[in-house]
């Protein structure tokens, strides 16, 4: 039986490899076609007398330019298709929002980031589910956990992990001085049973129990759940209007994702010592972006990118920042491959 299982696993691997090879060869095929076309146009181009048939000459010249551009892009596509895809990119993810330094301003900024991700999720047609949120008196958030479900969520949002910094005049500021505060965003890829198998013995599950007469004599929702993963010390607590059953299930999901994420980070740290190329350090405490309101700009410090569309991005146009990050990450990967 074990042999059949192994054979099935191998078969799955072969199918995966085959798909990859097919993809690469498809891109390569297109590349060959473009090269063919280029050859044709160039041969034609070289026969056109420049002065006598200026119009035709210019037309052919322009077409050649366009083909060159297509060629460059296609070459890149071929190379990118050779990259090992991060298999986690396609997954759904949990996102945690936490204010950093800056008191109520930080809490308000954390809410801005929460809304930014929500707006982005809407644009992408992803399901945005609030698992837990607690608001502060000033209307900001003390912390929030959401789950984003959809194809490719983690691949897009993984670069959002880290410390985001805001520079602006707080609402409460009477003298118009610019303050700086921060918030931390953590993106965790959803883990499944194959990635992580949490042993029940490693878990301590605390469920709310009334002290004294509970049951029928209490009808306020007390369905809080707290799960502690003893080996790592990670804790997830959820208290919310839902049923205890649901809260426990969600808490386990999030804990799995956290433990999984922790192990991946450890592995990455170890590998980091061997290779130096990677976008940012990936450390939870890394300051990755500054949002400057007076100047309407956002700067991503990892790739030195500055864009002047702060309101648009806060309203969900995050791709403006994410696409360059993905591209940069791909270039680093390609660089690694070429250097080897």
């Amino acid at each position, binding site marked *: 039986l074990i042999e059949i299982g192994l054979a099935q696993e191998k078969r799955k691997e072969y199918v995966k490899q085959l798909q990859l090879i097919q993809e690469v060869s498809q891109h390569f095929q297109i590349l060959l076609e473009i090269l063919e076309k280029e050859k044709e146009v160039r041969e034609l181009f070289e026969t056109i007398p420049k002065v006598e048939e200026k119009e035709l000459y210019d037309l052919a010249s322009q077409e050649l330019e366009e083909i060159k551009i297509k060629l460059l892009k296609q070459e890149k596509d071929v190379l990118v298709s050779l990259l090992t895809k991060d298999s986690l990119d396609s997954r759904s993810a949990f996102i945690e929002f936490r204010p950093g330094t800056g008191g109520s301003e930080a809490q308000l900024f954390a809410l801005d980031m929460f809304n930014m991700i929500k707006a982005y999720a809407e644009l992408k047609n992803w399901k945005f589910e609030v698992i837990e949120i607690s608001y502060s008196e000033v209307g900001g958030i003390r912390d929030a956990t959401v789950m984003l479900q959809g194809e490719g969520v983690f691949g897009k949002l993984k670069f959002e992990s880290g410390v985001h910094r805001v520079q602006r005049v707080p609402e409460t500021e009477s003298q118009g001085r610019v303050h700086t505060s921060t918030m931390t965003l953590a993106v965790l890829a959803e883990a499944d049973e194959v990635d992580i198998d949490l042993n029940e013995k490693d878990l301590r599950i605390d469920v*709310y*129990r*009334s002290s*004294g*007469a*509970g*049951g*029928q*004599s*209490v*009808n*306020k*929702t*007390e*369905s809080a759940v707290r799960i502690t993963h003893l080996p790592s010390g990670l804790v997830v607590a959820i208290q919310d*209007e*839902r*049923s*205890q*059953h*649901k809260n426990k*299930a969600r808490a386990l999901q999030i804990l799995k994702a956290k433990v999984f994420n922790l192990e991946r980070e450890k592995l990455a740290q170890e590998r980091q010592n061997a290779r130096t190329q990677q976008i940012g350090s990936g450390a939870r405490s890394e300051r990755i972006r500054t949002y400057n309101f007076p100047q309407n700009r956002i700067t991503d410090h990892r790739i030195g990118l500055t864009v002047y569309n702060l309101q648009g991005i806060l309203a969900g146009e995050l791709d403006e920042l994410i696409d360059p990050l993905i591209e940069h990450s791909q270039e680093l990967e390609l660089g690694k491959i070429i250097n080897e």
Partner: protein
Amino acid sequence: SEPIAYIIAKKEFWSLTFNVTKHTLIPRPCSETLVEVTLNEINNQFHQKSIKIVDLGTGTGCLLLSLIHSLNNNCLGFGIDQSKKALEIATQNAINLNLIDRVKFIHSNWIENLPIDQYDIIISNPPYIATNDIQSLDDTIKNFEPILALDGGIDGLDAYRIIANLNPPITNYLKENGFLILEIGYNQHKQVIKI
């Protein structure tokens, strides 16, 4: 201070959503323990064959429907209540959860109208608060929830006495390896066992 559950007319229990009205007790999170325990017994003893479950005082049907929802399609549920209004709610919940073809709701005073048969499991969350204690309950409970679902008589144990002294006895309705699973109140453990 009307309970939120009554305002929005819904309450989540066992990850499922149930309609509630002032004619039904609001499902309590700790009652999920009863569902958990029952499922464990079923898994240990019955190995998911076709099970028949009876719920005495079904109210919203939350206990019964949570169980049936978690079990295979051959398992059937019978929900009993003396309140017709509660049974209406339970029926609607069964429809909403697509379980209406596996449960039957019966208007009955305890086992009076329960079809004579040998069932695998009988569960109940009967009223168990002592009459005098009801006044000291929170306003959100005593002013809004059905007292009938809470009042267990002078010492809160009337329901358990009734169950223990039914005619024909409750054991007639249980298979030999069947279970009676009850939710009880704080500190009632020893007395209920005696009864």
